């Protein structure tokens, strides 16, 4: 990933954008943090948040007219937060803090003419920035003197004037602000701010000050907008003028990059759907502690997190895409040392939900897939992450399971059925039934039992993907380039992308065109539909299955996340291979998306849901019924999935093409073996296949090398067929083996050093 790409991605994620209140505040007070602290009754801490940003905080916090309230996201769920009242409560109850420490002196002198709130604030801002500043006025805070005691208690203004002095500002009061004073100041000082309207007439030929810079027709003279009454806008004018004076004395542009100085529009999005409306706490007088806390607690603590809220994977790594993409960038930059983001990169389901939900379309899948490709290209992809899944893909495309034929008795194909390697692994009977149905209705329908190569794509192995797709293409061409009928949404998507020259049709569209099969049983039931993630953008497919369910009399329940917004079952992107624990959490989450039993049209979704104990039907179960309680059928284990594929091939060859037992058996396959319950469970968890165990047993039969346990009499043997070493604890029973336990490791034992 190039740095420019990183910046582009980072910009897309809006989680760190400014909240609406802060963006709307002319002084950009961090009202969100302020409310959070107020909600915890940490008044002193909350005050320091205000004092960090507000000039003369004791005065301004009491006078703030809170324009943020109109932009507050809470306004649509009860009413905007009463920040003005909270500020006042905080000012009355928190311990005052000393003024901020000014920056080191810049050696530039400035003058402020006029002691109203704008003048006082400009003086504060200039002093803070390290300017030598003198305030000339008749009475400092003149426009505040008439305020009632309840608004501005006695002593508050005095204290802030003392703070101004502590900041190093000089106050020359009892000075008439006239043209003579202005001319002297402009001569002697580096920049001047005219705060009061006193000279308005005299300066009328200069016109209104510039909106952006507050500059006037006279070089070095900046002026407050005339007739401003809002205290917070007066303070903002003081700050804007100080910023301009800083730029002016530095000789830099007065206009560049000032878009975010005043109130601005922020991109931060906060979803309030599901937020209970809560009206503001409005006291008779001022707030008491409980009221202040309760009002502050109404603050939504605005953030986006839309994707994180809806994705177990994004939640699991405890951050959000902007941070993740940086971690991925850093991961790629590491030459020596640990790449901490490998697991995160390999755990994304690549399902695309985040992009659908994100107000800015941030695609975590795109970022992670690209990162996987880079890991593969640079030889740093952890070998264990996808090996098991890729071995499974190789098996599906290998001599035991792969089968490509014209229909029995035919020498050409108008169509070819591509059921996908997971349906053949999960439910070979229904593959048979669907194929028979297609032949019956369409005649010359060939068969392709192959993997569509999606696992290679998901693992970031583009070369392997292209190779596998080329193989499919060759075999499809050898059949005479028939129209391909596909039921698995992932195969559908992958084949349409990989074989653009082929006509790839969805089996579900075909059902809609041809009608339901005769065997389809009318249902009088409610089922929750589970759209596979590969169907997300296939509106035709989404419509087809719903229409077919309706034809069947099923009343369809849509989970909250459905259709375009469907969520992954935990298999997508090979999550289940790279991070089995998280895979489990993802499928558990999905299983809770509906009360009703699920119906889906992806074999993997069905099996993942079934693994959680949730009843889930494959759509074929409704079209080709014949199994009692099909929704409760457990997901076949890893070994059974392979056996299902191999047996299906053998059975179809025997039944349809009258070819028997042509697949040659490897010697290990003849080893007679049984397993205890514990052994079977461990094999599933540890991804050890029956064939792996048989290889160990065959090896120990040959070499006689094994350990024996002195108490149980169990034997223990190991073998390393390729990369992984398998250990098998077993006993010999009835001329065969009973396996009690099995484990594996990838570390290679080179030998004892004796």
């Amino acid at each position, binding site marked *: 990933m190039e740095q420019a790409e990183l910046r582009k991605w980072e910009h897309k994620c809006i989680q760190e954008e400014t909240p609406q209140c802060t963006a709307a505040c002319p002084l950009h007070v961090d009202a969100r943090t302020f409310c959070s602290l107020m909600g915890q009754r940490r008044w002193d801490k909350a005050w320091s948040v205000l004092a960090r940003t507000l000039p003369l905080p004791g005065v301004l916090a009491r006078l703030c007219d809170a324009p943020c309230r109109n932009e507050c996201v809470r306004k649509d769920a009860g009413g905007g937060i009463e920040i003005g009242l909270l500020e006042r409560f905080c000012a009355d109850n928190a311990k005052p803090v000393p003024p901020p420490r000014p920056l080191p002196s810049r050696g530039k002198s400035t003058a402020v003419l006029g002691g109203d709130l704008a003048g006082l604030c400009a003086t504060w801002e200039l002093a803070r920035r390290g300017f030598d500043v003198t305030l000339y006025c008749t009475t400092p805070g003149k426009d505040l003197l008439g305020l009632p005691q309840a608004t501005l208690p006695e002593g508050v203004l005095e204290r802030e004037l003392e703070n101004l002095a502590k900041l190093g500002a000089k106050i020359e009061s009892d000075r008439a602000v006239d043209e003579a004073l202005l001319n002297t100041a402009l001569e002697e000082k580096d920049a001047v701010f005219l705060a009061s309207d006193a000279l308005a007439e005299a300066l009328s030929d200069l016109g209104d000050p510039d909106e952006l810079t507050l500059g006037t027709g006279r070089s070095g003279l900046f002026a407050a907008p005339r007739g401003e009454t809002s205290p917070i806008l007066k303070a903002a004018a003081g700050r804007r003028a100080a910023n301009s004076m800083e730029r002016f004395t530095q000789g830099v542009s007065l206009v560049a990059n000032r878009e975010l100085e005043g109130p601005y529009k922020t991109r931060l999005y906060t979803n309030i759907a599901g937020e209970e409306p809560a009206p503001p706490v409005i006291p008779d007088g001022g707030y008491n502690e409980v009221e202040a806390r309760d009002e502050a607690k109404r603050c939504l603590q605005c953030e986006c997190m839309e994707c994180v809220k809806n994705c177990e994977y994004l939640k699991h790594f405890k951050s959000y895409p902007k941070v993740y993409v940086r971690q991925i960038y850093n991961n790629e930059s590491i030459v020596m040392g*640990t790449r901490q983001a490998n697991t995160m990169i390999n755990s994304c389901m690549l399902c695309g939900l985040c992009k659908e939900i994100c107000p800015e379309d941030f695609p975590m899948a795109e970022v992670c897939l690209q990162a996987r490709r880079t890991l593969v290209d640079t030889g740093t992809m952890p070998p264990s992450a996808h090996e098991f899944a890729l071995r499974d893909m190789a098996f599906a495309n290998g001599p035991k399971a792969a089968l490509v034929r014209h229909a029995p008795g035919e020498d050409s194909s108008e169509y070819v059925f591509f059921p996908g390697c997971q349906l053949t692994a999960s439910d070979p009977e229904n593959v048979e039934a669907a194929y028979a149905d297609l032949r019956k209705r369409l005649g010359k329908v060939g068969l392709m039992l192959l993997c569509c190569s999606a696992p290679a794509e998901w693992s970031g192995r583009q070369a392997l993907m292209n190779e596998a797709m080329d193989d499919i293409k060759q075999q499809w061409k050898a059949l005479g380039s028939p129209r391909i009928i596909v039921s698995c949404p992932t195969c559908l998507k992958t084949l349409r992308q990989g074989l653009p020259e082929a006509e790839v049709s969805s089996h579900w569209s075909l059902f809609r065109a041809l009608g339901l099969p005769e065997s389809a049983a009318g249902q009088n039931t409610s089922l929750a539909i589970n759209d596979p993630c590969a169907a997300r953008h296939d509106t035709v497919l989404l419509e087809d299955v719903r229409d077919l369910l309706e034809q069947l009399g099923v009343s369809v329940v849509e989970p909250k996340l459905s259709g375009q917004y469907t969520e992954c079952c935990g298999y997508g992107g090979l999550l289940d291979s790279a991070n089995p624990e998280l895979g489990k959490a993802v499928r558990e989450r999905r299983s809770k998306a509906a009360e009703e039993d699920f119906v889906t049209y992806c074999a993997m979704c069905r099996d993942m849901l079934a693994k959680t104990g949730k009843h889930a039907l494959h759509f074929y179960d409704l079209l080709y019924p014949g199994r009692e309680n099909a929704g409760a059928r457990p997901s076949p284990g890893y070994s059974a999935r392979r056996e299902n594929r191999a047996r299906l091939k053998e059975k179809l060859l025997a039944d349809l093409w009258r070819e028997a037992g042509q697949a040659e058996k490897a010697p290990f396959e003849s080893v007679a073996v049984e397993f205890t319950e514990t052994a079977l469970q461990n094999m599933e968890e540890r991804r050890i296949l029956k064939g792996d165990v048989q290889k160990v047993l065959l090896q120990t039969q040959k070499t006689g090398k*094994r350990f024996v346990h002195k108490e149980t009499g169990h*034997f223990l043997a190991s073998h390393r067929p390729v990369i992984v070493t398998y250990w098998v604890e077993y006993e010999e029973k009835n001329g065969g083996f009973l396996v009690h*336990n099995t484990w594996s*490791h990838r*570390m290679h034992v*080179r030998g004892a050093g*004796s």
Partner: protein
Amino acid sequence: MSVIKVPEADAAGWKCDTCNAELEQLPVELEYLDSLFNVELPVCPKCDMVLIPENLALGKMNQVEHLLEDK
């Protein structure tokens, strides 16, 4: 290279069936992704057959494999 000792390398109860010999803790060379380790493991002193117990394979060894994979 110093020899690493791991408490998980406990093979109590097992002996070499081939040689009918008790196992001894001896240094064994392990390799993964271009890294080499010398670890004291239960070994048959006669035929040098090494035993990797379940605890070790699924515990420490698995952790080290992951660490090395992320390098």
